C-alpha cells in the first residue's frame, strides 16, 4: 500500500500516534502487579453490578459481603491480617466486568468476589484464570460458569456460593408434581436472558420426563411491559399453572396482568423473584398461590440466620434479600478458604476452595463438588397476600 498524499490531506495516523502515546504515558501509573499476600492486609477484589440493568443484585451482594468482611476484621481478620476490600462497579456490562477484573489484578488482589450474573462472571473468568486468581461467584447460577459440558472441562479457578439453575428447576418440578399434583404447565421465559432460558429448558426437561406436560410456552424480552397477549394465548391452552422463571421486574407485571385477565392459576418461579419490589409492582392481592425456589428465607428460625438478618438490619436498615445472604456467605467462604490454606497465596486459596466440604452459610450447608457445583438445600417459598412463607427445604438429586 502506498502512502503518498497528493495534497495537504488527512494524516490522522499522526494523531493516533500522539494520543496513543498519551494513553501509554497515562497508563504507566496504573500497574504495580504484586500480590498483597506479603503485606499487612489481604486484598480482596469485589467486581459487581452497582449500576445499570441489574444494579439491585450487585448492591445486595456488596452489602452482604461488606458486612461479612467487617465482622471478620472485627474478629481479628484472617491469619492475623486484616482483609482490605476493593469494590468496583462493572455497570452490568460484561465488557466492564472484564476491565474491572484486569484492574483488580493490577491492584494485587488474592481473590475476586462477583459479579452477580452468570454472563458477567464468564466475561472476567479468562483474565483471572490467566492470572491464576480464584473467583467466588455468589449468585451465578448457570452451570457453565464453572463447568463446560461441551468439552467436559472444569474451570479450575471459578467457584460459587449458590446452587445451579437445574437444581432450582428440578426441585420446583418435583414439588409441583409430587406435592401439588399438577400435570399441565405453561411457561413464560425471557428469551433475552440466559438465566431465564436456562431455567426454562431445565424445568421443561425435568417436568416432562417425570410425567408432566408443557402445554404452552411463550417468550418475551427484557424491555417488554405488556404481557397480556402472551397470557391470553397461554390461558386458551388451559394449563394448571404457569412457570415464570425470570426476574421480579417482569414477574410483577406478568402476575398483575394475568390476574387482571382473570387468570387465577398458580404461578411458579425461581430466585429472581426475591425482592420486596415484587409486591409493590404486582400488588399484594395479586400474589396468591405463587411459589418460588430460593437460597434462603428470612423466615427460617435458625439462629445464625436470624442473627444475620438482625445485623444486616442494623447496618443497612433493610431486610437482606438472597443476594445479600449470598454476598455474606461469599465473604465467609473466602475467609474460611484462606484460613484452611494457611496462606493468602491465590493458588493455595484455589486449592482450599476446591476442597470445601461442609461450609455452614446463611444460605445453607454447602459442599463444592468436582465440577465446582455447590451442593446444598433449596428453599421453596410460597406467597400468600404477598407474604413469604418457607414451606419446604429440599435437596436436589444429581
Amino acid at each position, binding site marked *: 500500500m502506498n502512502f503518498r498524499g*497528493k495534497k495537504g490531506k488527512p494524516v*490522522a495516523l499522526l494523531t493516533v500516534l500522539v494520543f496513543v*502515546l498519551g494513553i501509554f504515558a497515562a497508563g504507566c501509573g496504573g500497574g504495580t502487579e504484586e500480590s498483597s499476600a506479603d503485606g499487612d492486609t489481604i486484598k480482596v477484589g469485589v467486581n459487581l453490578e452497582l449500576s445499570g440493568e441489574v444494579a439491585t443484585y450487585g448492591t445486595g451482594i456488596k452489602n452482604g459481603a461488606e458486612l461479612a468482611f467487617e465482622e471478620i476484621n472485627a474478629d481479628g481478620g484472617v491469619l492475623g491480617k486484616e482483609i482490605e476490600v476493593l469494590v468496583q462497579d462493572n455497570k452490568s456490562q460484561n465488557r466492564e466486568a472484564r476491565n474491572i477484573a*484486569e484492574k483488580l489484578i493490577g491492584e494485587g488482589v488474592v481473590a475476586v468476589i462477583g459479579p452477580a450474573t452468570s454472563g458477567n462472571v464468564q466475561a472476567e473468568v479468562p483474565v483471572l484464570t490467566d492470572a491464576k486468581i480464584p473467583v467466588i461467584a455468589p449468585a451465578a447460577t448457570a452451570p457453565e460458569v464453572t463447568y463446560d459440558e461441551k468439552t467436559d472441562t472444569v474451570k479450575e479457578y471459578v467457584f460459587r456460593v449458590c446452587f445451579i439453575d437445574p437444581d432450582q428447576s428440578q426441585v420446583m418440578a418435583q414439588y409441583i408434581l409430587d406435592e401439588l399434583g399438577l400435570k399441565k404447565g405453561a411457561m413464560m421465559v425471557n428469551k433475552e436472558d440466559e438465566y431465564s432460558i436456562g431455567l426454562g429448558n431445565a424445568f421443561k426437561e425435568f417436568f416432562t420426563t417425570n410425567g408432566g406436560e408443557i402445554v404452552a410456552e411463550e417468550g418475551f424480552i427484557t424491555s417488554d411491559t405488556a404481557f397480556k397477549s402472551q397470557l391470553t394465548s397461554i390461558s386458551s391452552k388451559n394449563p394448571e399453572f404457569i412457570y415464570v422463571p425470570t426476574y421480579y421486574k417482569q414477574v410483577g407485571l406478568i402476575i398483575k396482568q394475568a390476574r387482571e385477565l382473570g387468570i387465577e392459576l398458580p404461578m411458579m418461579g425461581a430466585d429472581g423473584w426475591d425482592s420486596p419490589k415484587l409486591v409493590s409492582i404486582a400488588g399484594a392481592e395479586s400474589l396468591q398461590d405463587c411459589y418460588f425456589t430460593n437460597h434462603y428465607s428470612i423466615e427460617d428460625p435458625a439462629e445464625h440466620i436470624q442473627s444475620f438478618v438482625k445485623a444486616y438490619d442494623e447496618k443497612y436498615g433493610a431486610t437482606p434479600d438472597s443476594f445479600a445472604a449470598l454476598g455474606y456467605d461469599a465473604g465467609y467462604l473466602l475467609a474460611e478458604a484462606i484460613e484452611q490454606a494457611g496462606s493468602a497465596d491465590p493458588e493455595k486459596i484455589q486449592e482450599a476452595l476446591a476442597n470445601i466440604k461442609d461450609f455452614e452459610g446463611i444460605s445453607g450447608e454447602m459442599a463444592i463438588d468436582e465440577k465446582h457445583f455447590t451442593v446444598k438445600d433449596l428453599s421453596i417459598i410460597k406467597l400468600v397476600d404477598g407474604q413469604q412463607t418457607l414451606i419446604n427445604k429440599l435437596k436436589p438429586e444429581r
Partner: protein
Amino acid sequence: MKKNLPIVFVCVLLFALFAVVQVGLSSGFISSYWETNIYLIGINIILAASLNLINGITGEFSLGHAGFMAVGAFAGGVITLNLGLPFLLAIVVGMLAAALAGLLVGLPTLRLRGDYLAIATLGFGEIVRVVMMNIDYVGGAAGLMGIPAVVNWPIIFISVVFTILLIRNFICSSHGRSCLALRENDTAAQMMGINITYYKVMAFVIGAALAGLAGVLYAHYYTIIQPKEFNFLLTFDILVMVMVGGLGSLTGSVVGAVLITVASAFLQSIPELRMVIYAALLIASAVFRPQGLLGAKEVSMNLLRKWGGVLNGSDGSKQAQ
C-alpha cells in the same frame, strides 16, 4: 498550498508508536487494564472513523452502526468458534457479512430523507439484535462464548492503520469527492453526473464492512459476545465520538475515539454521570459546533507547525492527568 507530511516521517512515527507500545506490553510496563483500554481505543477508532464515513463524509445519517458491528462480530465468531477456521478468514467473512448487511440496509432506505433514514437505521439495528437473539446457531440470547482470544497489539495496530488509510484514500479520490458532493448538495451532485444512489450505498457498504472489522476484533478480544451488548447505546457512544471529533473529519474521529475512550476509563466509577456527560457533550457539539471539535479540518503539516512541539510535549502533558 498546504504541504503533506513526508511519508518517511509518518512511517518512522508509526513504527515508533508500535514498538513503544509493544515493548510496554511485553515488559509488563503497561498494566493489563490499560492494555484493554488501548485495544478499546483501537476498536473505537475503527468504529468512529467508519461511522464518520457514512454520517460525516457522505452526509447520510445512520444510527445502525452497532448492528453492523454485531453482524461482523457474530459472523467472525462463527468462523473461528463454531467452524474452527483461521482468524484471518473470520476477518474476511465478518467484513463481507457486515458489508452485505450494509447493502441490504442501504438499498431500500436510501430513498429516505435524513431524519427518517436515521430512525430507519436505528430500527435496523434493533432488528439485527432481535434476529441474532433468535438464532440458536449463534447462541441465542447467551451469544457466543469461548471465542479464541487471538487479538493482540499488532493485529489492532494493523487494523487501525488499515482502516484509516482505506478511508483516507477513499476521501482523497474521485469517489470520496462524489460522496462529499452529495453531502453538500445532492441535486447539484446529480447534475454533475454522480449516481447518488450508488455512492450512498457505497458509503454504507464500506462503513458497514469496517464496523464489521471492529466487531470481529471485539469478538476475538473479549471472547464473549451477546446480542444485547450491541444495542442503541453502543451506537450512541460511537456517535458521541464522531460528533465531538467533528462530523466529516477523519482526524477528528480519531481524536474523538481516543478522548471518549480515555474519559470513559476515568469516569468508570461514576457510570450514570458518565452518560450524563456524554449526552451533554452530544447536545453541546450539535448545538454550538455542528462541525465538531476540529470541524472538517484535518491535521496536516501546517496545523502541526502551528501547534509547535506538541509531539515533544505530549508525554508530560498527558501524564499530568
